[in-house]
């Protein structure tokens, strides 16, 4: 388990760990885009075969809870945050799916690319659209690591999105109230034009 608010507040590095196989160059591209949003060095880690993944019985999905526990077990280095990134669809047993998962105040999070891809919904591929969605999801989970809960302001990045349309219409910025509670590295930069 993380060290609470201090974990995110004192973070010095953000590491992205591939879970399973990702499309070529996807993690580096995500790291590069993410560095434009956070004032922390963002590093793409090599794959780690040792990371145990569990599939949910009878469902073609990874168990996000089990994955998060495995990532948290690895995120023991102080001042480092770890985000697992998978191309697989993820879920927790009680929900049909989740876009990502993080424990408030923790040091690790997991994000799935599956439902951010327009092809999941039978639409043509759109790298920019998907890239924006993934960044939004990662920033949302980082907000949870910084102890933020969901925000009632539906224009805030911390508002709950239960479908991809909500992810798209939800603002790409933290509202002033949430922003005030974020560590400086997460609120320090404005979203670039393609995010707005």
């Amino acid at each position, binding site marked *: 388990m993380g060290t609470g608010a201090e974990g995110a507040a004192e973070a010095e590095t953000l590491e992205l760990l591939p879970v399973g196989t990702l499309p070529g160059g996807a993690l580096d591209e995500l790291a590069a885009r993410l560095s434009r949003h956070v004032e922390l060095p963002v590093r793409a880690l090599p794959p780690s075969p040792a990371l145990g993944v569990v599939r949910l019985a009878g469902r073609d999905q990874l168990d996000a809870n089990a994955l998060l526990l495995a990532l948290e077990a690895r995120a023991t280095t102080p001042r480092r945050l770890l985000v697992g990134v998978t191309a697989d669809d993820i879920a927790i047993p*009680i929900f*049909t799916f989740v876009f990502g998962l993080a424990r*408030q105040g923790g040091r690790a999070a997991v994000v799935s690319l599956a439902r951010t891809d327009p092809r999941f919904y039978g639409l043509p591929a759109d790298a920019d659209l998907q890239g924006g969605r993934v960044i939004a999801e990662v920033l949302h989970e980082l907000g949870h690591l910084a102890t933020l*809960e*969901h925000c009632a302001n539906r224009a805030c990045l911390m508002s709950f999105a239960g479908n991809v349309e909500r992810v798209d219409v939800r603002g790409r910025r933290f509202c002033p109230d949430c922003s005030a509670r974020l560590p400086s590295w997460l609120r320090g930069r404005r979203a670039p034009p393609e995010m707005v």
Partner: protein
Amino acid sequence: MSALRILIVDDETIVRDSLGAWFRQDGHQAEVAENAKEALRLVAQSHYDIALLDIKMPGMDGLELQDRLAAADPDLTIILMTAYASVETAVKAMKAGAYDYIVKPFDPDDLSMLIRRAAEHRSLRAENLRLKKSLETVAAPPPLLGDSAVMKHVLELVGTVSASDATVLITGESGTGKEVVARAIHAASARRYNPMVVVNCGALPEGILESELFGHEAGSFTGARARHKGKFESAEGGTVFLDEIGEVTPKVQVELLRVIEEKLVTRLGGTAPIAVDFRTIAATNRDLQAAVRAGSFREDLFWRLNVVNIHIPPLRERPEDIPVLAEHFLARFAQAMNRRPMRFSPGTKDALAAYPWPGNVRELQNAIERAVVVGHGETVEPSALPLHVIQAPAGPGPGSLAEAERAHIQSVLDASGWNITRAARVLDVDRVTLYSKIRKYELKKPDDGNGS
């Protein structure tokens, strides 16, 4: 949506933990129980807004737990969860009062919407209760008061008939409080949130009364420029109070009988009957049975109205009610006129008790209102009462009713300096009626020199 207190009851740890964390992330307070026993213990200890119950649990299942939780906290909104989509179970759950039913695994959006809807439902229900309470306060009928055995019997009857939809005929002299009793019945009945529509049948000519009662279509008679809903339609779901029913003409009696029996109204000039849902309460100061014998009132209508009869005796037959009524009016008028709490002097109490109150409770009410207006200080002295009240002869009053009426009108006129408008108000009759009584009893102003 403000933060909710949510209880999650499921025998699976993963479900409890996942949902608990999800709700907490959403800003709610979530607590978990792994079985029905634990859930009942938690609900007995503290308040929750919403409970999510798994239907299939070892021991007591979700449906049985739902019943017990609803009994422990009727305000709790219950949502059932199951891994098996079964219409039969869903119907059973909803019939038992569950707010909704959700199938595992949930779409996150569906759960979010469900919780949002449940919160709105709770908020609307709370608002509705609050409004009903304020409505009950604002629209509360004047209380039915009385220490006498006869009034206690009336109160009992009011309580009994309120629970039913039976037609009620209230009889009693003018001013005894027949409308107050009707309002008390309506206010205590299941129809209380719907209108109570009062029709003074004695005050309107036949044609206008028909139009008022049954409505009319545009152009149905000269002057009927627009469609007009009648009182029965306006009272939909509520109560129609037909005051002075004894004054209704034979033609309207026939029409009333049909509407009351069939619950169908046809507007004047209209052809299609309209179904209406109302309760009938009628009142009269006349002896309707005598009117039936005399042939001026239809017997079938009389029996249709007289399902339950409540007779309110005149105030002179229940003098023990005078103090409690007088105190009630004194407090009410003092408050309405922003006066300090007032009390009666012993002399005033004696005067109130000695007077026969031929105008009944309404006359007493008017006398107390006058006393509050003209009285000074916190004690009502006899001088604040109308002259005819304090000058009333002690002991038994005049012999016949006509003699009592004559004497009473004379004293009211004298007390008001023969101001007809004021005297008519005290007597609660219109000026035309008062003039006709003056003629009938050959009453004269004292300074006319002719005596009386």
